């Protein structure tokens, strides 16, 4: 019996918009995953909690423009703690089109923009976790 995928969800920085992350939390929860939601957090706190909770996925949400200025430090800190090989990093939110590519370059495994469906998000997370646990 496969272990439940444990997902840490957070808002990057002080971003006020949480409709998306709440929706994703429900969708992933309904798909059988275990959700740890820590709300507004900074990169270091996200990584520490992820280690404590021993999660398989870190998902962050940003609609306030800080996806690069906080997204990059998040991946950098995670790399320092050697998390990037075993943990899946996904980000969702509102960004200019060019930044989707940049976020992948920085090290996010998947980037979800408005229009991503429940199925896309759930299946992408499941596939990425499967790849990283091999």
């Amino acid at each position, binding site marked *: 019996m496969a272990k439940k995928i444990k997902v840490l969800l957070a*808002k990057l*920085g*002080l*971003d*006020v*918009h*949480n*409709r998306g*992350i*709440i*929706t994703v*939390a*429900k969708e992933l*929860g309904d798909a059988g995953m275990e*959700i740890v*939601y820590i*709300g*507004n957090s*900074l990169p270091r706190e996200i990584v520490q909690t992820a280690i404590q909770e021993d999660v398989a996925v870190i998902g962050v949400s940003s609609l*306030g*423009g*800080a996806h690069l*200025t*906080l997204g990059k*430090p998040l991946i950098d800190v995670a790399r320092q703690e050697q998390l990037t090989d075993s943990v899946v990093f996904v980000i969702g939110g*509102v*960004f*200019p*089109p*060019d930044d989707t590519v940049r976020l992948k370059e920085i090290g996010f495994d998947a980037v979800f*923009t*408005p*229009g991503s*469906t*429940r*199925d896309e998000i759930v299946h992408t997370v499941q596939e990425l976790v499967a790849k990283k646990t091999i």
Partner: protein
Amino acid sequence: MNDKERTTKEILTEKISAGERIPLYNPSALEILRKEFSGWMQSAVREKDRKDWFKTPRTVLGSDIPREMLYTPLSHPDFDYREDLGNSGQEPFTRGIHANMYRGREFTMRQLTGFGSPEDTNERIKFMLDHGATGLNILFDIPTIQMYDSDDPLSQGQVGMSGVCIDSVDDMALLFKDIRLDEITASIVTHYPSNTAILFPMFLALAEQRGIPWEKLRGSVQNDTSLEELIRSGAEFIAPRDCFRIQCDNIEFIRKNVPQWNFITLNGYNLREFGTSGITEMAVAVANGIATLAEMVRREYDVDSVADRLSFFWSPASDFFEEVARLRAVRRLWYKIMKHRFQAKNPRSMWMRCHVQTSGVSLVQQEPLNNVIRAAYHALSAVLGGAQSLHVDSYDEAYSVPTEEAALLSLRTQQILQEETGIIDVVDPLGGSYYIETLTSDIEKRILDEVDEIERAGGYVSAIESGQLHRKISAYFYNQQKEIEKGDIKIVAYNRYKSEAAPPPINVFRYPGGVEERQREKLARLRQSRDNKRVGVALAELKEACKKGINILPYSVACARVRCTEGELFKVFKEAFGLWKPPALW
């Protein structure tokens, strides 16, 4: 039974008697219509249409209101012109709060501005004023909205994005450099009661510095508990009842000391954008308005001394006629509440004056120029509904803060409506439409029903504290997402007529660099150059006022004067009131 024990709906139902209506339509004429209608149904209407006579439009942020295929006098046979409409500027104000509406005063084009440092936004303000904008609408960045200083660890990487950063009265001065504060009207989007009690005092302190008496200042603040407690994600919260107390302190202070200032903008827009129907949006805002007036009465203010400056903020979305009808519905409902629940005497107290912002959530990234069309329709519905002022979302809204060209196009959308279409020459042009009048009445009932639900749950503040409203809204938007993904709600070029073409290049706004570092330096200099002894005293006195239950505004103004920072004031609130944890929603 006294009024305190009855809900607003019960009071209105009792006081507004059906027997006093004088139906406009001749009963014999209606009788003939009724007979002919069934004949027409059988002969001219296809069977499929007879079966599906009622259809519910499925739109983004829509409601569940079924529509007839055709509306006739039979849809609202007891229509009473005087009771249901009145003329414009006449009770019940359905047709508009002024007799002449846009002939007397054009709708204010109040586009949002705000990004980067105060100096950056100052330039954009001047650009908009030069190009015909008639009001300012200042939006702050997320750290400022959330009440943290630009050099707070929590603010890192977010300063000056999606709004302008303001840490102290010094930044206010830069924001409004060369702007005559007594010559413009400024909506200062302070969102929460807590940050209204922090940022507005900085604006007042600036006016003082420039020798401008507070009596000359005109504009508005948001100051809405829904924004602070119901619809935002935040690192730290104070409890809803403390937040509501600050909301009322703001009203009390501004009413007395800044008489031309609109001290609350009942929300409305952000609530709906968070994810709810136009009905719930209005019910929550109205419930807040009722709770606020009840509290001000408890503080021994005459209702007329407060209600004449209440205003609302709505989000026109895509169901075109619903948007027109609901502005009229809430205008009539608010009149009834003011007249019968609060016994207001002054007609100005009974006006539902409102600003609208076209729905941002209804815009999409795919084929962004389509958003120009969507926003234009939203704007049109708001003007036909009688809104007082307007912000039209820009087509690149789905990507970022607007570029200058996109912001200009939004302004032009309003100007074309105003100057080229002729629609502002006639008041309430859709009044009398069988559809609009039936829908207006239907929506009015639905809003009142939801207000009743909130009141039965203990009232506006209780319904927030218990999580009831949070859960209602999150259930709505979770369901919306499913409907959009299923394709029940159609969005062109998104899930319907999906375009395979590559998106046209649009210039997306890039935030100016270096803002965070400059703010950091400014704050370091500020903390050194101000009188820190006086700062300490001012903050301590503010904390005392919080705990003593007296109006905190004189104390936060005193803090602003001695150049306290925003984060310092929020820290006082957190320490004085303690923290509250909002309900989990998944």
